[in-house]
């Protein structure tokens, strides 16, 4: 079967993303580290910069982080912080500046501890997105980020450059969305490893080269579908993953699904389709407002109400027809954890689909229990 990417990074999507960042940096681009899908990458690209995702998913640096941070904190925050302390995160080491958002309390306070290392801007994110003034306020945050970049790198970011960047990102986002839509094929023609690779690649790739690569992937997937080259068995149970971002050591949950012979057909998280699911209005006359509007629609559990999450789940379940929805919560992520109450009831009662909640961290200690849980949920009819 033809791989989606014809390069040397087959099993290493992060190294592929790193190569993108390094390539652009060598060509003179400033590298802006980001911790969240709310970081408006259009502004970074408009400056001629390149975004690099700094969220880490490795258990290895956590003991280092726990020398400073509380043990009962989200593993993603501990891992990201530990890497910085150890100076072993290649992405962070390449950054010229970092953007954070007030998405989550743990991250917000962690940013205060890392600001000594890099120029850092923290965007204040309103968390009642439908309240009066929320979009206008968030526009101020986006503008603040733009001004921070302009001052830090002695440059200007014009409206025309922002419009061009919006168009480029929209084009890319539409293609990524098209790729994820292949998840609807039954039997599957795309694996979760491939979806994850596409989502990881698209974060730091932009321009004609990226568009050509994504179009080539669509052609490959179309060929697989037409030639009936399936990545799962006809009888394989189908699984949609929703919830917290996943990567690295927490991919253990997804690997366990593979071990049970089931097929993951969708990744509804910030390391999946979520950052690419929407487009920004083009030619609005106020690109910062257009960006603010689109980003405030991201359905993260930090928002209340988070009605968008349920709309997305409905669309995803209808399109992908999963037998099971796994709601993956990282330990100490209170918003996603509490939201599972509503998600479970919605998935079971309104969408009529089986549901499994998994709370985990980056360690291997719960592998045995997770295997039993996932296997039992997949045994159900």
């Amino acid at each position, binding site marked *: 079967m033809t791989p989606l990417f014809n390069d040397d990074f087959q099993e290493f999507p992060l190294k592929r993303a790193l190569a993108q960042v390094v390539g652009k940096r060598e060509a003179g681009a400033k590298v802006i580290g980001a911790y969240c899908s709310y970081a408006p990458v259009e502004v970074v690209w408009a400056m001629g910069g390149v975004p690099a995702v700094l969220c880490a998913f490795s258990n290895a640096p956590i003991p280092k982080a726990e020398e400073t941070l509380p043990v009962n904190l989200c593993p993603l925050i501990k891992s990201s912080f530990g890497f910085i302390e150890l100076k072993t995160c290649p992405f962070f080491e390449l950054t010229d500046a970092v953007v954070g958002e007030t998405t989550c309390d743990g991250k917000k306070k962690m940013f205060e501890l890392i600001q000594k290392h890099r120029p850092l801007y923290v965007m204040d994110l309103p968390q009642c997105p439908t309240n009066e003034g929320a979009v206008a306020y968030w526009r101020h945050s986006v503008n603040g980020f733009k001004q921070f970049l302009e001052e830090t790198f002695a440059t200007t970011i014009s409206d025309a450059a922002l419009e061009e960047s919006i168009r480029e990102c929209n084009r890319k986002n539409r293609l990524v969305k098209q790729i994820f839509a292949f998840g609807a094929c039954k039997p599957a023609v795309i694996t979760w490893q491939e979806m994850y690779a596409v989502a990881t690649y698209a974060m730091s790739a932009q321009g004609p080269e990226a568009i050509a690569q994504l179009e080539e992937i669509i052609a490959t997937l179309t060929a697989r579908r037409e030639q009936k080259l399936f990545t799962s068995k006809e009888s394989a149970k189908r699984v949609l993953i929703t919830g917290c971002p996943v990567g690295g050591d927490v991919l253990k949950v997804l690997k366990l699904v593979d071990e049970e012979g089931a097929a993951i057909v969708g990744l509804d998280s910030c390391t999946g389709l979520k950052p690419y699911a929407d487009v920004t209005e083009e030619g609005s006359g106020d690109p910062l407002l257009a960006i603010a509007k689109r980003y405030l629609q991201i359905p993260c559990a930090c928002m209340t109400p988070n009605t968008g999450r349920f709309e997305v789940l409905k669309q995803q379940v209808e399109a992908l027809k999963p037998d099971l929805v796994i709601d993956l919560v990282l330990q100490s992520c209170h918003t996603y954890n509490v939201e599972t109450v509503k998600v479970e009831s919605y998935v079971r009662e309104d969408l009529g689909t089986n549901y499994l909640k998994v*709370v985990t961290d980056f360690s291997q*200690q719960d592998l045995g*229990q997770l295997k*039993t849980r996932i296997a*039992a949920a997949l*045994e*159900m*009819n």
Partner: protein
Amino acid sequence: MSLIREQYTWDLLISTGYGRQLAQKVLGGDVITEIKAYTTAAHHFHPEIDTVIDLGGQDTKALSINLSSGQLHKFEMNDKCSAGTGKFFEMMAGSLGLSLDELVTEALRGGRSVEINSTCTVFAESEVVTLLTSGVALADIARAIHEALLTKLVSLLSKVMRSDSGAILFVGGGAKNRAMVQLLAEALNRQIIVPEYPDFYGAYGAAIHAIQSIRQESI
């Protein structure tokens, strides 16, 4: 397992429980999770029961069964640590210098004079030591240890139980604990049914599943 392989023959073998994959590797056959095994056995022996609680050595599960189909409707499990499992009793008995049987006997005599708030085995141990050194009766401490775990079981059950659920089937090694059975019945105001060999219930389920599979194939 090598002994089993040498001494027995079978038409179909189903392994279950945490060692299921290892058993399959050595002996062949198929695997099902203990959750499916419990569901199968429960519906076979007690088709009128829709709620099952399994108190095992390393985890605790609450199951809700669809009475008309006999299929699992939903299930809940304890968090990843040993808190809220049978292991908790073992550790607590150890810190009191009692055997498991003695702990149960003490608990049945004890009253509700104190509370143990933690089911974390490490924290609970320090609570127990504090109670002991402040002169609380051993029986009351034993009772409090059971009450602490009871809270966990009730919260797990409340996630799967329906208001019209009748008797509850209690399986796993923990079901041999008479004090726990009595406290659970009082807390839920329901009849608690304990099978004769609660710790072999998963094995029954696997065997029944095997028989059902053979029958289905021969149809």
